[in-house]
């Protein structure tokens, strides 16, 4: 009996000690992102490294394509079922921020090291009302891809840097020499979300629409941009809208681009690797400087450089510490950085970036885009995110101009007024 009792006591003691031994209970967190096969593979590799470094944290990966990602994410966040770490495209953050659906990462700065990140980048893009609601996955450069052979073969002179006006002139020459060829390969989104803010920022400098939802440009500035588009269409620098809209979702899949009949395309360096896969393009495409106003004409020659995407921790997460640990590892660990390379564009972490550069892990095209873009990079995002209504208004008028239903001179003031109304609505 004594023996039995002592055994029982020993067993009880062992049980009492057990939790102390396993102080760090195994935790499973979920991590969701979108991307292509290359990004998936690289991210899974980084997760593997993370699990080796933190054996008590198991990461369940939830990944897929971009299609429907934001719809799913919004629904999950609203339902409180989103993953513990989510990759967010940023363009609809505004909506989520106002509902305070993301965790303030300032509370986890003891876990997430932000010392290698540009503080102005964090302030411009990741901070709202003093809350650090996200960490940038990478910075991107606005990459201008030029089919140099097409231009040279048709006798079009290529300047050191295109200006808005030289593009119009060159468009005429190119289309005259080859009636099947056009200068710019753009989608409606390129015209409303990228070219428009870039044009306005270069023209008036700084902000396009401020955080109080007020326009910092005049109706004349808007008319000038619409007139430039009108001129581009008149000069056959842009394809007819009926053809263009077929590739609105993915302009770089336009067969005319892959077939060497479109001279200039633009994309973010974040998606650069997805597009320059074609053998023909590899041979004929150069990364060139992004266009601007001629010296002295515009207020500045900046290009907006927003982060490629963000990592966030939804407010409903039950494992915020572990989620923060994962974010820190993905962004700061050098091996994780090597594993991920530039699958989310260039790392925003300067230390990781210099390691990648030193070890030749940065794609030559992306490196060139950044080399050209960095001196002109503008951290100020110019417009608050999530202004879809403004884009819709702009798109309506651009389309009417494309079909000659309205002139740019008429459209400018009307469009300006409607953007004003849309902004009042958002407020």
């Amino acid at each position: 009996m004594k023996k039995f009792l002592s055994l029982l006591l020993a067993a009880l003691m062992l049980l009492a000690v057990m939790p102390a031994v396993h102080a760090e209970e195994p935790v499973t967190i979920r991590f969701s992102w979108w991307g292509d096969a290359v990004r998936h593979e690289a991210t899974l590799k980084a997760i593997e490294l993370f699990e080796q470094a933190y054996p008590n944290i198991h990461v369940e990966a939830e990944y897929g394509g971009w299609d429907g990602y934001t719809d799913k994410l919004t629904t999950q966040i609203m339902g409180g079922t989103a993953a513990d770490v989510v990759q967010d495209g940023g363009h609809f953050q505004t909506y989520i921020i106002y509902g305070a659906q993301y965790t303030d990462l300032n509370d986890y700065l003891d876990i997430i090291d932000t010392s290698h990140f540009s503080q102005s980048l964090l302030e411009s893009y990741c901070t709202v009302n003093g809350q650090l609601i996200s960490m940038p996955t990478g910075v991107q450069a606005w990459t201008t891809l030029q089919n140099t052979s097409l231009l040279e073969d048709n006798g079009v002179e290529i300047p050191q840097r295109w200006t808005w006006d030289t593009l119009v002139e060159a468009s005429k020459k190119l289309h005259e020499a080859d009636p099947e060829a056009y200068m710019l390969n753009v989608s409606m989104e390129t015209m409303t979300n990228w070219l428009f803010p870039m044009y306005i920022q270069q023209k008036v400098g700084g902000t396009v629409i401020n955080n109080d939802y007020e326009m910092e440009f005049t109706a004349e500035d808007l008319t000038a941009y619409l007139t430039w588009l009108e001129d581009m269409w008149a000069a056959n620098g842009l394809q007819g809208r009926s053809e263009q809209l077929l590739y609105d979702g993915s302009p770089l899949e336009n067969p005319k681009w892959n077939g060497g009949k479109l001279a200039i395309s633009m994309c973010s360096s974040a998606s650069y690797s997805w597009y320059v896969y074609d053998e023909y393009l590899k041979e004929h495409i150069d990364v060139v400087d992004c266009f601007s106003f001629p010296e002295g004409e515009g207020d500045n020659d900046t290009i907006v450089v927003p982060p490629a995407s963000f990592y966030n921790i939804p407010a409903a997460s039950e494992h915020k510490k572990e989620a923060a640990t994962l974010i820190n590892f993905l962004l700061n660990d050098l091996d994780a950085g090597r594993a991920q390379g530039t699958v989310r564009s260039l790392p925003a972490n300067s230390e990781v970036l210099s390691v990648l550069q030193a070890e030749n892990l940065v794609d030559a095209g992306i490196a060139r885009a950044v080399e050209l873009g960095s001196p002109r990079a503008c951290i100020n995002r110019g417009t608050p995110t999530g202004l879809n209504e403004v884009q819709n208004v702009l798109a309506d008028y651009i389309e009417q101009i494309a079909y000659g239903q309205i002139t740019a001179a008429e459209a400018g003031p009307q469009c300006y007024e409607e953007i004003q109304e849309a902004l009042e609505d958002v407020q």
Partner: protein
Amino acid sequence: MTQSKFRLFLRNNKGFLFILPWLIGFLVFKMYPFFNSLYYSFTKYNLMKAPAWLGLDNYIRIFTKDKDFVPSLLVTLRYVILVVPIKLLLALLVAMLLNRTSWVMNFFRTIYYLPSIVGGSVAVAMIWRVLFSETGVVNAFIGTFGIQAQTWLSPSLALFTISLLNIWTFGSTMVLFLAALKGIPKDLYEAAAVDGVPRLTVFFRITLPMISSIIFFNLLMALVNAFQEFNSALLITGGGPLKSTYLYGYMLYDNAFVSYKMGYACAQSWILFAIILVLTIVIFKTSDKWTYYDDGGDF
């Protein structure tokens, strides 16, 4: 309730137990969102903040201020008028051609039904874009007949082009017609043949009246589906050019999932529901004038 009464209740309502899984699914996934959307339609709701009560504001705004509402409704009506008759006629025509007994017919039935299975998918919409592009197969095909290449997604033709995608999926309508055609008693045709009735008269006097109940059903389904069309506008044209394909369903999506104006979108969807309901009632009410049921048609 005593135990025996409970047993009695169970015995009398056994049927409900069998349909319970469906019933629960219906109540949770259909009825709840249905009535919830009615509530949301009276609120300002952006998914992120709790809905704020607005009363009739959304509805008033739709009818008085929304510059997309009427044009989009007109585009949708045009789409319905284009799709529904052509789809029904085509389905009936093919069903009549296939209404013979031969093993080849089974093969063709499958072939014609295939588009209904793959019809609205993203991949097909992508193929549609390639087929109808300037240098696409369609232009190459009509070119062989000496017809000039068309810009299929121009403001004047885009609606027609996306209509074709819906019309192409006439398979299930055709199968129903085929079943109805097979159900017509042979002796009616034999009697007509003995009397030497011309074929056209046989079609109008025997075939059409005998399948009128299925025409009624197909008409209703095609109408409801066409009013709610969304995929083709999103995937092929993005509602453009110049909003010529800005279908009602696409406008709803735009408001709900692009602008996050859920309350407003709910109000718009209830207006669409009301329109479809009225049309359905009209068709139902007039149907007893032109449909024929073997059993008298009592439900």
